[in-house]
């Protein structure tokens, strides 16, 4: 049906997850798997780049909720970047900007992590 792709790359101590396509109830488990993997590798500094994310449903948002607590407990964070206005609107309606740091640019988010380290 609709494609959803996850691409992960590491930039120093920060893991960047790039999302592409439609993140809904069907594709949410893929993102869950990706987070699971990061957890098992103790990578808690996570930046989610939403540049190519066309749609996110409540199930997709739920994935972030499921992991953010654990990530923060381990002194890490999930930061979201490069959202299209439409996707940002979904986050915004639910009040996610209150819960998550959302940046226009990926580098900015990475910089935040590295700034925190210093």
């Amino acid at each position, binding site marked *: 049906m*609709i494609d959803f792709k996850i691409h992960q790359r590491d930039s120093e101590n920060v893991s960047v997850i790039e999302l592409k396509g439609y993140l809904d*109830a069907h594709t949410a488990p893929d993102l869950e798997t990706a987070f699971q993997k990061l957890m098992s590798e103790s990578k808690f500094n996570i930046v989610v780049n939403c540049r190519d994310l066309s*749609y996110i*449903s*409540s*199930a997709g*948002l*739920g*994935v972030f*909720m*499921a992991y953010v*607590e654990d990530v923060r407990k381990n002194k890490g964070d999930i930061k979201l970047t490069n959202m299209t206005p*439409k996707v940002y609107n979904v986050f915004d*309606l*639910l*009040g*996610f900007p*209150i*819960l998550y740091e959302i940046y226009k640019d990926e580098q900015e988010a990475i910089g935040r992590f590295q700034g925190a380290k210093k």
Partner: protein
Amino acid sequence: MNSSSIKRLAMLVLPAILLPLVFTYDVIRAAIEFDNDSITLLRELFVLGSFTLIGLFIEKRRKSLQRNAPREIGRVFFAVVISLVVLALVSVMLPHRISGDGSIRIHQSALVLLASSLLALVIGVLSLYLLLIIHDLVLFKRRKTTWRYYYMYLILLFAACAADVPLLMSEGNTISSILFSLAMVFVVVNSFKQNWIMYLSRREKKYSIIYSILLFIALVGLDVYLASGSESNIAMIAYSRPLHTFIRLNAFFGTIYFGVTFISTLFHLPTAEVFERKQSELVSLHNLSRLVTQVFDFNDLLNTVTQMTSEVCGARSVWLELFSLHESTGEMSVDVVAKRNITQQEIDLIATDDGTQLQRYLMDSRKALLIEDIWADRRTKHLKKKGFARGSLLTVPLLSHGKLIGVLYATKDFQNAFDQDDIDVMTTFADHVSIAIENSRLISKSIERERLHQEMMVAQRMQKRLLPQFLPNLPSVEFSAVSESSLEVGGDYYDLFSLPGERIGIVIGDVSGKGVSAAFYMAEVKGIVMSLSKISATPHELLSRANDTLLETLEKNMFISAIYGVLDVRNASLTFARAGHCPIIYVSQHSVELIRSTGIGLGLTGRTQFEQSTEERTINLRTGDICIFYTDGITESRNAEMEEYGYERLMHIASTCTHCSAHEMKEMILEHVRTFIGQGTYNDDVTLIVMKWLGTSEG
């Protein structure tokens, strides 16, 4: 009395008349030394005719008797013995007046004639009986050639008899001898038709051996007698030479036939077991096939399989293990579902620690595994120390769609005790069990599916009851609402209820996700709202308290978006707070706007953050104002091009209908959304509430 019984009676009555007649004639002839060729011929015809009728009578009677070859042979044996006793008695009784020079004297007393008549009758009947028995045995599982050879014998038999009719052929002896010799050839040929022996059970074969050798000996005795020059024999020849020939040939036939029977049964004895086994395999398979279809007697089937395996293969112990996959843990569990002659402890010996090797082998190979010596095989030798009995072990996998679903085990007391047949039989049994298991699983699956469907229907009805059955009916405000689930049950929720002081509570919520889990939370939300609405002063307070409760119960990845509003009829105002839910569309006379107060979904964050970030707003209503509450099922509806319906379209359609009633507005929006989607149904739960303020009479 029907015609067949009349016929049967005639078969006995005629000989009963004819034979005494012949006897009377003999006595008269002996007395007056009378001799006439044509009368002699007639007498001979009477005798042969009588015996033919007796033969037919016996044949008809015998048909109704049950056939059991060894028992029949036993009967013939006793008949021959009795006949021999009668022969001996008569021989002793006969006066020794006739010397054994071979010449046949007919100067005899009436007593001698009576004795020879009786003797001819007894031995003649015996001979007929013998022939009929041989007839049945030779023609068992008949083939064309069998028939041919047998009838050749009969033809030659009758021809030899006919050649011996005095006066018919004056020098009949030579021709008769030739025919006799030819008949003997066919006696030998027919004597190899011993097919029936193969189908005897071992027990029957033993009987057959005993009776056939006894019968053989008795018949040899009869042969010797019939060839001898003893007076009674000569008297019998004198009575009727063709009859004597008939008796002699049949006696020969019997002797040779049962001699061969004895020898072949002896040779067949070792194969009796195999044959019996094949037979029991067939019977078992038949029973099994029947049981396979009766999946409701599943345990019955499993027990039958172990029982049959132990019977057919002669195994000491048999057990059947089934594997089941626990869906939650993903672990494979092994259950012994049927066992015979073995304890669970013994079975466990194989399964534990070292025994995993055996199981792994089965899992990997999915083939029957034969362990010739449990104590010696590397996969099972650990069992020796544990006190598992020595012997051989055969394991056969149960496969369903190429997946290993169980194993059938059998042990025997000795090493190398299983043969290929055992493997074949057990494989067949295992296949049957697999099929039965598959059947039963399919059936229970479809029953389960049906049950689930029913339950879902119940859940759907119950959920429908959680939604308001009646909307508030007031002169100053109009409500119209709808909620449709894309699945049987959904996570959307709305409610409209009266509050003290001419106020109306309005709630709309959307649980993240769909289906059963969402439906449960939706019910919870209803409960929470119902209880909090009475004690909360403001929408903000209610949502904040609801957030507290839900934060505890919701799963981490679940949350709920909601709007709670209170319509104050007296003040013509709507006060509401938005907890992450789709913003209200406010349609006034001049504009259509999204009222996007700040707010955060329920169950996402703790009290402080929630309270801080959730704002409460109040709209002062003017007559004709419309407020539209909805869930994202509307705005996120997609058409075939995966385009979202969105807020723009919703606001636009609302703006075209500012003078509509609440109901008309609702219908119009739904119609618009459906038209936009095109084919198919909503892909999410859809809820829509339209509230139209009509104004208070004094306003």
